[in-house]
Structures are given as C-alpha cells and as structure tokens.
C-alpha cells in the first residue's frame, strides 16, 4: 500500500461565459514511503495544479476536482477542511517555487517557523523558539538565533528557500511536496538545496514528490519519474529506465532538446516543433499528435491508454512509441 496513491485526478477550471479549461486530465501515480517521485513537464502541463489539488489549496469556487487521492488510506480530496488543516503541515508539507512570495514579508522568520510548531506540536514560548533555531540550524542556516529575528527580505534567496524547507520539515511530515524548489535559484545554490533535500529523504524516510521542469534535477534525485503532457502522464518509469530508453515521442524529444554540458559541441539540438498551444483534447486522441514526428491516423482515434512496452513499471501512453530507433542505432 503506497503512502500516497493518486488515481485519475482531474482538475477543471470553470468560468461563466467561457469554455471549461482542464488543467489536469486524469493523472495517476503512487508515492511510497521514502521514495522520491518526480512529476516532470513544461509549463502548462498541470504539474503545479496537481500539487495544489493534493494539498487542498485550490480555490473552492470555479474549480472541479475529480478522481481520488488517498494518503495513508484517507481520501484527501473529500476530506473536511478542518481535518485537512490538521494534516497539512504535520503529515503533508509543501515547498514552493518562489521563497520570497511564500513567506510573509512583514513577519520575522522566527514567528513564521514557531507558528507551525505551536499549531501542530503544541510547543510554546522558549521551547518553540529553541526548536525553531534547531530547525534552521539543521537546514544549514548559520547563526540561527539571529536569523530568527530577521525578516524574509534580509535573507538571500538560498537562505529563504532553506527557511521554507525548515518550516516544511518542522513536524517531520510523511510526505513532502516540492514544487520547483530550485527554479528561482542559481546553480551553485541549487546544488546545495538538492543535497539538503536528498539528505532529509535519506534520514527521515520522508516521501518526496518533486515537481520540476528540469530533467537534470530529476536524473539525480528521483526514483520514479512521471512525464506529464497537457494534464496527463505520458510516460512513467524508473529514472534509469526513462533516461536510457525514453519511449514516448514527447519524452524522447524533450531529452533531445536539452543542451548537455557533457555533449560534444557542434551537434545541433533536435527540438520538438510547435509549442504547447498546438494540442488537441485528450478525448479526441493524443494531445501531443500535432507536434509529434511519429504520428499516424491511429493517434487521432480516442485517448491512448498507458501500456507497458518494455520493462516492468515502464508505462507509456502512445500507440506509436519510439521503440525501434534506439535499437537500430545500437546495432548499426
């Protein structure tokens, strides 16, 4: 039994006088204890909305959420707001992309960290302050007692992200959702934060749902990777399997379009044509078909199902997967 089991999650935004827009269109994945699961995709693929839906942070009006998301046997989507509030912060925690806008600018860091300790762990006064200093120290913020009195703007970007992580792990949550935790940071700071996340997962056995657009980050961190496109998972595999044999034309194309630091110079990149706006509804066929190099008329007849073309656990939603090409290259 997985710690978090998401089945056919869908999120549709509705507005008067406009067509419904479906951001997440049937996403399913499992996260086990101590596992790092990645949701990868470009902007507009529904990865952030997925995380907000799981945390119950979507607005109540104008949003239709469907499917199931069971955390430890309890459905998060149908849970009462009061119960969900108890869960958030203590069992489930989230790290956001932009650390400056996720921290309250007019409240010192210390108050923001102790708030969680008071709410969920019942610590008060000096004890809470001491624990807060411990937490900051643990995520690698030097001189934590001084930092507790400072405001978010006095901290550097990397330090703010560390403070957010400290708040997220304050109650030793069982599931940590990190939504693009390093996107706003420089590479050297990114490396520090990724090491910190890795360490937390290793030590505490926390499950981590990593949401990112950066395949490089995924390659170093995630056990299981789900590639999303237009609100659906198009490929799901262990990281080694995925990077060695990307099978969905989108995943394949994505890897082909990244300039690699270790690649020899002069080789042109092989980008995917068009943009995310060139897509069709999943109900009519494969949403990626208009951009796909491999598409046939078959792609336009109904939603393709997730199938297992290769190794166990490697699932692909495609009727014309990129199978023969890598093999031909190997034999040639």
């Amino acid at each position, binding site marked *: 039994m997985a710690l978090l089991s998401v089945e056919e999650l869908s999120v549709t935004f509705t507005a008067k006088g406009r067509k419904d827009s479906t951001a997440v269109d049937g996403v399913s994945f499992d996260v086990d204890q101590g596992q790092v699961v990645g949701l990868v995709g470009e902007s507009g693929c529904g990865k952030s909305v997925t995380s907000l839906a799981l945390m119950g942070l979507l607005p109540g009006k104008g949003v239709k959420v469907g499917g199931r998301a069971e955390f430890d046997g309890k459905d998060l989507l149908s849970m009462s707001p009061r119960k969900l509030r108890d869960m958030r912060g203590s069992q489930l925690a989230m790290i956001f992309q932009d650390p400056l806008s996720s921290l309250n600018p007019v409240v010192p860091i210390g108050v923001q960290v102790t708030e969680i300790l008071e709410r969920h762990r019942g610590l008060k006064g000096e004890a809470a302050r001491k624990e807060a200093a411990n937490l900051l120290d*643990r995520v690698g913020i030097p001189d934590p007692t001084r930092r507790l009195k400072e405001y978010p703007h006095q901290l550097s970007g990397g330090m703010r992200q560390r403070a957010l992580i400290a708040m997220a792990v304050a109650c030793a949550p069982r599931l940590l959702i990190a939504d693009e935790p390093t996107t706003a940071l420089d590479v*050297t700071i990114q490396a520090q934060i990724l090491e910190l996340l890795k360490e937390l997962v290793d030590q505490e056995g926390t499950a981590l749902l990593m949401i990112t657009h950066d395949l490089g980050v995924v390659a170093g961190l995630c056990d299981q990777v789900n590639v999303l496109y237009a609100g659906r998972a198009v490929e799901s595999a262990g990281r080694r399997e995925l990077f060695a044999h990307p099978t969905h034309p989108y995943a394949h194309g994505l890897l082909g379009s990244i300039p690699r630091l270790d690649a020899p110079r002069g080789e042109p990149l092989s980008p995917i044509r068009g943009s995310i706006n060139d897509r069709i509804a999943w109900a009519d066929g494969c949403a990626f078909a208009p951009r796909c190099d491999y598409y046939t008329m078959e792609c336009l007849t109904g939603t393709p199902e997730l199938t297992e073309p290769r190794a166990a656990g490697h699932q692909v939603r495609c009727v014309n997967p990129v199978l023969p090409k890598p093999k031909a290259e190997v034999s040639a």
Partner: protein
Amino acid sequence: MSLLELDDVKVHFPVRKGVLFNRTVGHVYAVDGVSLKVEAGQTYGLVGESGCGKTTLGRGVLRLVDITDGEVVFDGTDLAKLPEEEMRRYRRRLQMVFQDPLGSLNPRQNIESILSEGMAAHGIGKDQDERRERIKEILAKVGLPTNALSRYPHEFSGGQRQRIGIARALVLEPDVIICDEPVSALDVSVQAQVINLLEELQESMGLTYLVIAHDLAVVRHISDVIGVMYLGSLVEEAPSDALYAGPKHPYTKALMSAVPVPDPEVEDRRERILLQGDLPSPANPPAGCRFHTRCPWAQDRCAAERPVLTDVGDGHKVACHFAAEIEAGTLELTRPTGIEAVTETKAVAAEGPDADKVAIPAQSSGDQPAEKKAEKQEQDSAEADALAKADALAKADAPVEADAPAKAEAPAGADEAAEADALAKTDDVPPADDADAGKADADDADAPESDASGAESAKTG
C-alpha cells in the same frame, strides 16, 4: 583585430543617501575591470550567476548604462567616448535581444510597427512598402508567418515572441547581436528551437554574438569562447571545449560541477564541489580575489592580492594565484568540498561499521552538536562533550548510535565519518562556520570541524 574589444571596462553605480545633498556614500561595483575580445563571426558566451554583472556588461557595450571607465572598441571606434548622437547611429550595427520577450515588445504596437520603427529611425528602406518587403524576408528567416505583421505581441507564444525580438534585431542588418539570456524564459522544447535558429542565422548571415546567460550548458552549446564572470570580473576565459575539458579556476570548477546533467549514469558518478554561502554584495566586494570568501582552496595571499587574468596557454586565461597548484593537486583544501570525499572514502572504508561513531569527536564546539542531537535523539550533552575531548575514547562509545535506525545508506555514512575522523587527527583545518558543509552528504566529509557534518552522520548511522 577583433570586431569588438573591451578593455578594462568598469561600470560602477553610485549609492546615494540624503535628500538635499544627495551624497554619494559608496558604489556598487557591478562590472569592475573586464577585458575581452569578440572575433567576427564567432560567439562569445558570458556566463555567471545572478548578480555577477554579466547583464550590466552587455548593456554597457551598447551604452544603455554609462561606462565609468575603460574602452569598448568596435570596429576600430571607441564607443565609450562617442557623443550620444553618433552612438545612436552605431547601435544599428550592434543590436540586442532581451531576456523577457513580452516585456521588451510594446503591447500596443503591431509587429510591423515594432519591426519598422528601427528601420525608419536608421533610414533603411525608401518607404514603408520597401520596409515591409524586407520585414517579410526576415520573418520567413526566423520562422514566423507573414500574417504576423498585423498582429500584436500578446497573440504570440513565448517562443514566437523571442523570434520577433530576434527579427527586430535582424532587420537593421547588424554586425553584432548581444543576446541577454535569450532562452531562459522559454520552455525546454522551445528553447532548443530558438538556439538552433540563432545558430542557423549566424551561419547564413555571418553574425557575431555576445551571448549572456546563466545556463552553462546553453552557453557551452552555442559559444566558441566562454568567459566566466564572478562578482564583476572575469575569472576564466577559454575556448568552449577547453573550458569544459579542464576548468582551471575554482569557481568554474564548482559551477560546472553544480550543473545537473539529464542522465542518471552521469549524475551518480558526478563529483561535486559544493560552494558554501552566497555571493557577497557587489557594493562591498571582498578585498583581494573576489572569490576567496567561498573558495575551497583560499590561501592568505588570496585575501591580500587580486589576481589578474593571465594566459596559461592555448588561449586559456585564468585569474587565480594558485591555478597551477590546484591543477597539480599540491594545494591543500582550506574549506570542505566534494572532491576529496570521492577518493578518500575508499581509502578509509575499511574502518567499517563502527566508524560512524567517531564522527562526534570531530565536532569542534561542544554545545551546538549537543543541541542538535537533542532534537532528534535524547542525548545528554555531557556525553557529547566527553566525546568531543577524545576521539580515541569515542570509538569505544558505541551506544550513541544504538537507537538510530540501520539504513541502507549506512555504509556511506560510515565512510564519511571514518574519513572525517582520519582527517581530524592529521589535518589542520580551520573551523567551517558555515553549516552548509554538513548538508553535502558524503561529499563534504572532509570537514572534520564542521559540526553539522558530524551530527548528521551520527544521525544517519
């Protein structure tokens, strides 16, 4: 003679205080003495993290910001000393592509108006009809439909907007295009389209690029020569392949080792140098070598004397006093990095299972680690203090770890601790006050004094 030559360019922004007298109380040294040469038909990549001054330098070349000192020689003319009106005419030949394609296009002008404005200003084309024909040619070159002419920026996707930005530069038939983060606002799949477009255009039109970007992989992909900037000055400059094959400056080494590669095989083997802390403020840059506050190899001389960019052969230039020593491996580390851990772990791995206990004496201050442990496991600090005094005793002190869960990664923790211990006995390493080091997992194990490292491994074990 290079097409574009920068000689000791400085851009300092005054910091003012007070209302009435507007005193200048200091300067932000955004660009502080950069010299570089861009050859015709080539691409010079300028790379660095946010705040290193790379964008200011690019804007300084076009005189979009005032240059405090230095020369910008373009095709034999020093742009820095040109009167404003003459400079305006020179800007036809030096164009810029900006980072944010939406922010740099006027939302109330259609594409034809955006593209023809510059042409009219510089007197290209007799009338609007002739300009329109020229614009259509360029639109085809950058891969936009001709019906784009009457449309407005918001109707385009991010990638298309960036193509419009490139087209705006191209219609003036420039010699040099300065691309400031040309692809960082775009999605990966679209990013590749724009990179390929830039390369095709360079080939077909013989353009010279100065590409400014933070993404080392992108810069390496398109540049012939790369300059690495740190806090307002170049620390290393080399041909693209040479820089990748053998970075010589410690900052470049760290930067390159921090870039994730989308390949698990590479990721698992990658040696990392984790820098500690953040970029110092350019308003108050460190004396001597700007990097010495974070450099893993920093020596006394680095704090006193600022190194100059010197050629070490084959056009590879580096600004470091000790580049050769670091290369030869004769310089001892003064701060923890990931490098040593990789090799030394193997050597001490033999110490085996009880090695993780010895990590505790490696902590320098008795109080902090004790506090830390109290957080996870109820340890009395007296025990920790006792341990801190003698490492020999500590080895025997097994119960410390008794309640820690035995995990799969225990061997790694053991190695780390063992190594920390080994070093603690022999090495004379100043205290690492920055606990970042401890977060570096096994990589950072060569920091015996880093209390975080010790405490973490104690917990892991």
